[in-house]
């Protein structure tokens, strides 16, 4: 869809001629003339203006009444006055009105000092009040949710939070209750406001009415510094601004970048910063002595690691994930390839793709951008659910559907959060996304035979595939396919990649505004691969002489004793890899496991022999690559945590430094003395990064596929569709066996596990099944059930969902316990174990409390404290 064109016009404001984009709202247009019109309710991110606060009244010649600047589009030749007595009177009146019921408790209010109401009162208010009547009173503060405290006396009823809930996150929970001067913001039935994006309302609130409970009473604006960086907790890589006081991160706010996050954050990104300052942080090197991990100095740890790696040589292996930066990945692969002559490197839990396919998928012409998700004519959501995989994309897709009438086409095994917004929904069997792509390819090439075969292999029908294709292609040529890296998991990964490239080719996704967008599993999955950390290719998809083993191969080889030393860079294979049982054996058999990790996880505690303390993202410098190819910079916001022994130099060190020191001990000198030098080496080694500088990346990032170097590196690529074979059909559910699919909940991460405020959201295992199956098995919602096959069992609470297709169950993976990474796709048996499983107030799927099971049971708006032990206290 073409982006709106900007037409510049000239209008007059306060006697000056100003150029501004036509139809921009006056409030925005005025800024082009350095005129500020005060606003409370206006926030362009929230969509259409509502004109509720009346703060932005201005005088326009030719219109008798004052007009709201937030809702009046500027036209050529318009004459606007913001400094007349009439306008001043109206502004003073609105401020006076807003303050009559406001407690004016600025000295104890967390917003004081960074409060729009305060600023506007000083700038435009009357200075005094004539109001002597008693003010409105509410019980306060209240827990609006485990994350947010609400002070209704401070609220100026600007509607921002309500509009966010209704029109942006579309969770439809916040409303205004009552009317007139009695209005107050609440969830409609008084249950806690729990949803994936609630924290944004804290940032939207123009007064201190909505305060994040993790920041309440922690600092005043003159105590704090802001530090811009990038959140590495999921592949969305939202731009964030960290609030730092005394070298501690106290708050995470959005650092608006329309190209990345549109100015929103999810609650994980906003509140899981607490993992930076918890007791679980590893702050010094550790080594296993007599079965226990004990602190050692860096020399000892590095020497031991160097020795283990040196001895292993080609029998070493490394896997990386999560917040690994491009530089760390690049240096570690150099160490492995150049010194150990070893290519056993992998960042893909599902295994690495052959080089031509990896390169083909990275073709700059095929890359869609994040804004394309909003402006495309149609988006195909292919077997992923952004709410769990990359939450901020979820908001972008909602925006596209709501404001630009985009066709959203969902083809997924598990019901997604976006189903209600979709034009078409196709449910295929778990693990058959490849078959679906083959069917789409066949439909596009009019191959009736393959279409029928592949569609039924996917557990769907030829007609359903054709309907989906119709909705995908009918609106226009700008089509984006959003898919997850999980598509390539398993032995048929390469065939799935072929099928995807075929479909992309036939849909002609090479144009601007169209393309593919992959959600990697690791936060920097794309960058790590492009830096060369892969079994099948070197930096910048360079061919390698002897490809190594990928993840599954590494696990098998370790378990069989063919490999001896494993380097884990910010990753936990027991949690994040499929085949948990194989990895359990692999880690037990490995002679030396080197863990480079920031938090003491179960895996580190049980299996690591040498532990390098890792940095949290707020302490890191380096670069990342966003799923759409945007190279972004991590900037160091705080220093490394102090080690227990308080000896200088004995604590956490930068990742690049650790790897560099390790290489030095093995006789390889990278010549890297600073993080930026590692970046320079990376930019020089990866052809399509050539010429990049950290300055150029700056605060907003640079999309490498849009750079000249990318064109030079990839050249003119053209690809002919290849013949595809129909993949094996999905397992068929029978009387006692159900298909099984897995999903990774948004909240399943080690950072959430250790963040005190997010404990309410920590997922537990659930077994999602359809009510029809539940009836057949005699299972009620919340019952404890067990699913399993061949002696591998997972227990969890039954969760009845109408949208789950009959004959299928879904279980969560990536949990700290009861992980389902034991299953591959297939069928499982289901058994009811008993009544309601252990209390799980919050459903991990979308983080909503089950109705009637709220951990608070607040009586409407009168709650002051939650019952003991159920949630963190207000003042904690």
């Amino acid at each position, binding site marked *: 869809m073409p982006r709106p064109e900007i037409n510049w016009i000239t209008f007059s404001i306060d006697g000056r001629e100003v150029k501004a984009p036509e139809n921009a709202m006056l409030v925005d247009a005025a800024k082009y003339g350095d005129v500020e019109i005060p606003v409370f309710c206006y926030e362009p991110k929230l969509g259409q203006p509502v004109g509720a606060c009346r703060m932005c009244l201005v005088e326009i010649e030719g219109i008798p009444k004052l007009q709201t600047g937030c809702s009046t589009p500027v036209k050529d030749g318009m004459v606007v006055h913001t400094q007349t007595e009439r306008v001043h009177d109206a502004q003073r*009146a609105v401020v006076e*009105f807003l303050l*009559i*019921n406001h407690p004016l408790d600025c000295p104890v209010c967390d917003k004081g000092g960074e409060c729009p109401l305060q600023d506007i009162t000083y700038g435009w208010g009357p200075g005094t009040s004539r109001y002597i009547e*008693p003010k409105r009173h509410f019980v306060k503060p209240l827990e609006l949710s485990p994350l947010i405290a609400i002070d209704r006396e401070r609220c100026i*009823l600007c509607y921002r939070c309500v509009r966010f809930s209704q029109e942006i996150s579309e969770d439809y929970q916040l*409303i205004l209750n009552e*009317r007139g001067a009695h209005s107050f913001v609440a969830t409609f039935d008084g249950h806690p406001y729990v949803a994936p994006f609630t924290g944004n309302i804290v940032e939207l609130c123009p007064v201190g009415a909505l305060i994040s409970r993790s920041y309440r009473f922690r600092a005043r604006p003159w105590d704090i510094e802001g530090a811009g960086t990038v959140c590495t907790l999921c592949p969305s890589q939202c731009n964030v601004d960290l609030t730092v006081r005394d070298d501690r991160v106290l708050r995470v706010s959005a650092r608006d970048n329309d190209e990345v996050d549109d100015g929103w954050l999810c609650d994980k990104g906003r509140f899981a910063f607490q993992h930076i300052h918890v007791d679980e942080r590893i702050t010094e090197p550790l080594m296993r002595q007599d079965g226990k991990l004990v602190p050692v100095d860096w020399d000892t740890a590095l020497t031991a690691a160097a020795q283990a790696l040196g001895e292993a040589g080609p029998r070493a292996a490394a896997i990386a994930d999560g917040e690994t930066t491009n530089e760390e990945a690049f240096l570690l692969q150099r160490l492995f390839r150049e010194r150990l002559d070893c290519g056993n490197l992998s960042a893909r839990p599902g295994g690495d793709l052959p080089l031509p396919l990896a390169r083909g998928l990275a073709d700059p012409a095929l890359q869609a951008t994040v804004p394309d998700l909003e402006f495309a004519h149609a988006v195909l959501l292919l077997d992923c659910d952004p709410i769990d995989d990359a939450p901020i994309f979820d908001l972008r897709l909602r925006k596209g559907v709501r404001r630009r009438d985009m066709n959203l086409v969902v083809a997924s095994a598990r019901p997604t959060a976006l189903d209600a917004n979709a034009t078409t929904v196709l449910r295929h069997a778990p693990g058959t996304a490849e078959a679906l792509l083959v069917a789409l390819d066949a439909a596009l090439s009019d191959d009736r035979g393959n279409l029928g075969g592949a569609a039924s292999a996917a557990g769907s029908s030829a007609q359903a595939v054709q309907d989906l294709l119709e909705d995908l292609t009918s609106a226009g040529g700008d089509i984006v396919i959003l898919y997850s890296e999980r598509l390539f998991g398993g032995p048929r990964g390469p065939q799935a990649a072929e099928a995807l490239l075929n479909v992309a080719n036939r849909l002609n996704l090479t144009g601007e505004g169209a393309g593919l967008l992959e959600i990697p599993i690791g936060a920097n999955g794309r960058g790590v691969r492009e830096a060369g950390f892969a079994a099948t290719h070197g930096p910048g998809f360079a061919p390698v002489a002897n490809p190594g083993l990928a993840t599954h191969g590494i696990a098998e080889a370790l378990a069989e004793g063919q490999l001896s030393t494993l380097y884990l860079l910010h990753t936990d294979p027991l949690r994040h890899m499929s085949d948990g049982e194989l990895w359990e054996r692999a880690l037990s058999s490995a002679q030396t496991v080197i863990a480079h990790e920031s938090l003491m996880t179960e895996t580190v505690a049980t299996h690591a022999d040498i532990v390098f303390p890792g940095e949290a993202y707020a302490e890191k410098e380096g670069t990342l690559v966003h799923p759409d190819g945007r190279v972004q910079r991590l900037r160091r916001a705080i220093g490394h945590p102090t080690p227990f022994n308080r000896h200088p130099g004995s604590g956490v060190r930068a990742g690049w430094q650790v790897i560099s020191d390790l290489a030095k001990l093995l006789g390889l000198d990278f010549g890297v003395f600073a993080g930026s030098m590692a970046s320079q080496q990376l930019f020089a080694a990866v052809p399509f990064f050539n010429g990049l500088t950290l300055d150029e990346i700056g605060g907003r990032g640079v999309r490498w596929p849009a750079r000249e170097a990318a064109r030079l590196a990839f050249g003119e690529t053209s690809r002919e569709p290849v013949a595809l074979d129909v993949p094996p059909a999905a397992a068929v559910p029978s009387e006692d066996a159900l298909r099984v699919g897995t999903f990774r909940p948004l909240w399943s991460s080690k950072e959430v596990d250790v963040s005190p405020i997010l404990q309410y959201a920590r997922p537990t295992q659930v077994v999602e099944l359809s009510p029809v199956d539940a009836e057949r098995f005699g299972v009620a919602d919340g019952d404890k059930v067990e699913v399993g096959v061949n002696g591998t069992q997972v227990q969890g609470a039954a969760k009845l969902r109408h949208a789950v297709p009959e004959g299928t169950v879904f279980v969560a993976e990536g949990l700290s316990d009861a992980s389902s990474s034991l299953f591959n796709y297939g069928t499982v048996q289901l058994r009811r174990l008993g009544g309601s499983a252990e209390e799980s107030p919050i459903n991990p799927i979308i983080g909503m409390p089950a109705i009637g099971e709220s951990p608070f049971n607040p009586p409407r708006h009168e709650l002051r404290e939650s019952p003991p032990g159920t949630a963190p206290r207000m003042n904690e």
Partner: protein
Amino acid sequence: MSTLLFYDEIDKPGLASLSTYHDIGGYSMLRKALDMEPQAIIEQLLASNVRGRGGAGFAMGRKASFLPKGDMDKYLVCNADESEPGTFKDRELMQKNPHLLIEGMAIASYAIGASRAYIFIRGEYMHQADVLDAAIAEAREAGFLGDRVMGSDYSLELWVHRGAGAYICGEETALLDALEGKRGNPRLKPPFPAIEGLYQGPTLINNVETLMNVPHILRMGGEKFAEIGTSGSTGTKVVCVSGCVRRPGNYEVELGTPTRDIIYGLAGGPPEGRKIKCWFPGGSSAPVLPGTDEYMDLPFDFESIAEAGSMLGSAAIIIVDDSVPIVDVALKTAKFYRHESCGKCTPCREGTNWTVKMLERIENGQATPMDLDIMASVCDQILGNCLCVLGDAMAMPISSMIKHFREEFEEHIEMARERNGLGAAIPVMNRDERGPDRSAEYSAVGH
């Protein structure tokens, strides 16, 4: 004897039934309309210069002509949310002659090209809603509504939607929100409903009485209709007279009839021995006018009343005689608007609340004449600065009361202070002289 359009036969037995209505020539105008070009009907409406009877007095023909032409989902909505204090004309009209409204709506829908029409009726009008439902069922049965109206190519569905009791839903955009199933809050204008209204389609919204005029306009011809009344205010008007008069009720008069004839002639004037202190010419949101001869001689039409500093509004005349303290009138009025403010925009939400609190202070003898200035200033700050006109609807009458009856307010303040043992309203510098601290009583006023 002035022309009567509605009240000549309104008490005819069985008028609410289709057969009686049909016997007196009902639905013949719909037949006529269906044989006309839609544009020709709008021309007739324009020629008649009939102005909206709901309050704002906007010419109906012009409003209808704003709707875009062409094939799209358009809607006609009848605003039957008659909630303005003092107004009760639509109630009687709908109850006694529902088919006239249905016929008017069918003609108007045909004229603008709407195939769906709604009557948004005030929730408390339960009987009237039942009457309308029954009448619509009859009309549909007889082919005046539904598929292929009277055998033509035109189809129309008409529904009655019952409101839930909020005054604000009489505001056209709030009404649309409520009709869509949302909370009834006014929308930002523009876009006006004629361009983007119900379900974002072009929508014509008119009052019950306005739509009931449509068959008459078609019967008489627009130009002939325009001869009734004055040049700027054509037609007749049902006037609801209430308050301190001997014969309160609905009276249909030609617009331009002298006010005295309505208040003293038709309604019988104030009770024996009383004098009219002031009157609301058009419902409680119209500024009050004093009961002096100068104002009694005004012709009762849109222009004259506006020129006198008030508005015709819904033509609900409320008479206040000299036995009623003006402060009571002001407090009652302000309380109504505070209660009904939706709370969306600041000046109305806070201003109505503040005004009530100040008036309560006056009533309790805790005010000084200075508070009158503040109150006038607060009303001034509301006027014209709100999202919809509800704020203005309180500010206008209160300002007018202060303007016309300031002396009475001041007298009331002094007397109430004396009753309260507070002494004269002069500035008091220290607490002891200010009398007992009554702030504890106030805290009950808020929440």
